[in-house]
């Protein structure tokens, strides 16, 4: 799936998981992860991404398939012998131990000499900037501090791999953004390999080297954030990553990497890139990002023109979101930066929208 160099530090081959021997939660999961890579499993809840994480950690068994870590299969290794660090959504700090004792626990279990443990704990407390909090109990820390301790505790014993299960899910928005930076900083500094699970696409886009979009127990696409955003392979990924508009239509002509689509209930034809759509005559959905659409007459030099009627606008702050109706009655959204006098329209007023053909992609109708 990827063409990078040594991407087989952690590899999954045809992993399947079933809880009841009837339905598969994970249908066919194959993926390679490079050493030091930050890989995110992104998917809606119930997509099976947490199950994959639990199988790596060893808390769930693998129904079939193999997981190789550094060339060695780990599926038959007990969880506590896998040397994999884990950060949980609810932090899972031991409430009866102080912060320093929490950090020391994995080292104590490994029978490290006491002075080495003390030095290591001090080093990691400084790393997460909580050097004066070592004596406190977890209950006395804020959510963000707790998650930093949980992170340090998962890293302190030099695990071969760090798993993070929606670690920022319980934090508010501001704190979440701070922690994203914090995790990225630690990752850059220490260079550990991470498998990160989240349903928050912003989190995935900002932190990851690569993102595996997961749905229905299958990896839909695994690629770098910018590739995923700009060249989604199917309409699930196009819809799930970022905001997107879908215009229904029929394919009427083909020209190499581009196709021509006749918009449903209208006479206009638009040129689009070829996604996973079918041959001439088949139904398709054309995706166009809201920020890649322009309201006439500002950008008249575009390839495509779509006639719509104005419905309403939302004032978001940094941008303004315009809602229009397509000829078949579906909504289409346009984002306009709030940097000049934003245009105003009357409800029902006919408007022309334009776009470049490389910003439109035709996918198979679902």
């Amino acid at each position, binding site marked *: 799936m990827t063409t990078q160099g040594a991407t087989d530090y952690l590899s999954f081959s045809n992993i399947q998981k079933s809880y009841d021997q009837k339905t598969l939660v994970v249908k066919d999961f194959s993926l390679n992860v490079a050493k030091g890579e930050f890989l995110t499993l992104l998917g809606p809840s119930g997509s099976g991404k947490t199950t994959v994480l639990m199988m790596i950690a060893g808390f769930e068994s693998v129904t079939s398939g193999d997981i190789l870590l550094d060339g060695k299969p780990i599926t038959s290794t007990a969880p506590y012998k896998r040397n994999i660090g884990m950060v949980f959504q609810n932090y899972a700090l031991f409430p009866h131990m102080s912060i320093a004792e929490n950090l020391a626990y994995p080292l104590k279990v490994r029978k490290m000499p006491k002075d080495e443990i003390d030095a290591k704990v001090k080093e990691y407390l400084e790393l997460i900037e909580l050097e004066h909090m070592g004596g406190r109990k977890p209950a*006395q820390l804020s959510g963000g501090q707790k998650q930093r301790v949980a992170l340090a505790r998962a890293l302190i014993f030099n695990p071969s791999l760090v798993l993070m299960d929606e670690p920022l899910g319980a934090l508010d928005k501001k704190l979440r953004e701070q922690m994203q930076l914090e995790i990225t900083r630690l990752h850059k500094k220490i260079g550990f390999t991470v498998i990160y699970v989240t349903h928050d696409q912003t989190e995935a886009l900002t932190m990851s080297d690569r993102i595996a979009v997961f749905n229905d127990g299958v990896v839909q696409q695994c690629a770098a954030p910018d590739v995923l955003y700009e060249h989604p392979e199917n309409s699930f990924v196009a819809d799930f990553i970022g905001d997107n508009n879908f215009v229904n239509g029929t394919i009427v002509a083909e020209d190499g990497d581009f196709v021509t689509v006749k918009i449903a209930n209208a006479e206009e034809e638009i040129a689009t890139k070829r996604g996973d759509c079918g041959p001439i005559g088949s139904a398709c959905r054309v995706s166009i990002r809201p920020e890649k659409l322009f309201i006439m007459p500002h950008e008249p030099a575009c390839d495509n023109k779509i006639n719509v009627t104005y419905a309403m606008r939302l004032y978001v702050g940094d941008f303004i979101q315009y809602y229009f109706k397509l000829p078949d009655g579906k909504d289409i959204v346009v984002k306009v930066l709030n940097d000049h006098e934003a245009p105003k329209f009357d409800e029902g007023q006919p408007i022309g929208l334009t776009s470049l053909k490389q910003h439109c992609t035709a996918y198979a109708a679902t």
Partner: protein
Amino acid sequence: MKKQKFPAYYSIWHKLGHYGLQYSANLVLAFLILPILVIIPLSFNVEPYFTFTEGMVTFDPDAYSLRWYEGMINDPNWRLAIKNSLIIGVFATLIATILGTMAAVGLSSKNMPYKRLVMALLLSPMIVPLIIIAAGMFFFYAKFGLAGNYAGLIIAHAVLGIPFVIITVTATLTSFDRSLYFAGLSMGASPLKSFFDIVVPMIRPGVISGAMFAFVTSFDEVVVVLFLAGPGQRTIPRQMFSGLREQINPTILAVATVLIAIAVMFLITLELLRRRSDRLRGLDEHA
């Protein structure tokens, strides 16, 4: 401004209900506690009666004495009974606590098959009438040479105590976050080490209160003792029982007072342990 006792919308019926509930609750408490409290002064009676004498009512020091306490301590029967109660109670509690905790941990695992059935079986000693259990045990234990000796009584009392331990430990386990245990495993601690380092400290209050209940159950128990104990295993309740029939005098009131004192001390210890362990578990934010 005067603080209003009732919200403005309260009608006469609301107020009547309020006071009615208050008085009936007080009445229930009085009926529960007074029969116990009345025993305490009577145990200091100088006369061998179970009623208040004139001297006691007028607080004449000569009407009070410690003779029944002396009698209790000097009577070899009572001394044996106290010793037996402690031996049987301590060992039965130990067994019930260990087995009950293990059962509770197993029963709260999601992989446990026939969970409800096993739970019902283990809790049945609490529900089945004691006399039936005692009779059953008598015939069953006799076959294995467990009637008329300490081992039999300790096992029998452990069986009676296990349900209490299971209930209290299960209750603390429901609030236990299993990801803590998983976190222990992920850091390299074996399942057994994770259990002792992480699970046990968290469920300790449940284990302690379960153990207390188990001990009190054994300490109070008379029916099973009547069936299973030989003359050498008379416990305090058994001695009181025969005392009531044979030589009725306030010695049993003295014993009862001692038992009440022990029970109160137990409850206080329990509460102190609970507070301490809450503090250790980091639940008290002001620790």
